[in-house]
């Protein structure tokens, strides 16, 4: 029980395991420890939900919110086209 006691009251360790579990999986022993912690800790349960939400948001934000991102200006594009053209002609 000593390991369980150590994690049962340790939110730093529990949140670390939550992140590791999200991304790569954790050992069966760690799964058990985490479950034990979460059963008694509503704050870390909330952290877990919010962590998953943040992951979803990050994916969605970066893949679909194009209108919020800065755009390339035409001047830059025209210069770049000229540069490519001249590089091609040098060959």
């Amino acid at each position: 029980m000593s390991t369980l006691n150590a994690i049962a009251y340790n939110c730093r360790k529990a949140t670390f395991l939550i992140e590791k579990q999200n991304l790569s999986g954790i050992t069966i022993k760690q799964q058990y420890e985490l479950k034990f912690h979460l059963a008694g800790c509503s704050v870390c349960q909330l952290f877990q939900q919010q962590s998953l939400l943040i992951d979803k948001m990050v994916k969605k934000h970066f893949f679909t919110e194009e209108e919020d991102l800065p755009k390339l200006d035409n001047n830059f594009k025209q210069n770049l086209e000229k540069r490519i053209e001249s590089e091609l002609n040098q060959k």
Partner: protein
Amino acid sequence: MSAEYRFEGKIDGSVTLDPKKWVEVHADYLFKYAIVRINDQDLAKDLVQETFLAGLKGLAGFSGKSSERTWLTAILKYKIIDIYRKESSGLANIKAISNVEAIEDEYFESADGHWKNEYTPKPFGKVQDPLQDKEFNRVLQSCMNKLPALWASVFVMKHMDEEKTEVILAELRLSSANFWVIIHRTKLSLRACLQKNWL
């Protein structure tokens, strides 16, 4: 016309490279790819330009097995990793890791690992569905911008590029222990920032 210059025909009977149309067809896409990963407009522009120039030099090496866009994106991706790598080596790395220690103490009691009162997670209560909320996106982006560059790089490579952990460790020359420390603390930092600015 040299051998390398024969790019406008089909290579291996499969994919066509047409550099004269690169800017028109791919510049915006590549710029977006860069800007969300490095968050620096000038640097992103430079990278788009460097990608096209490297592409021109590598025309002969194009195997025709991937699409033109996939091929150009792969060139850009390695240029971005080079930047991450510079940021994750030397002084910058030491600074980021020691920053990490400070953050850990910020959120948890050092004696027992309990949440400190002022950082205890509270519900994000403002809107019903944050996935539909533009304001949430804006705040998320500003919170991402506050992360140390190395943390942001690790986070982006793992969550957006869905790179294998081993690849990230190798590319950024990080130890596995440091990788997980960074993943953990990036999330703590983002979550706290969202709670502070969005609640």
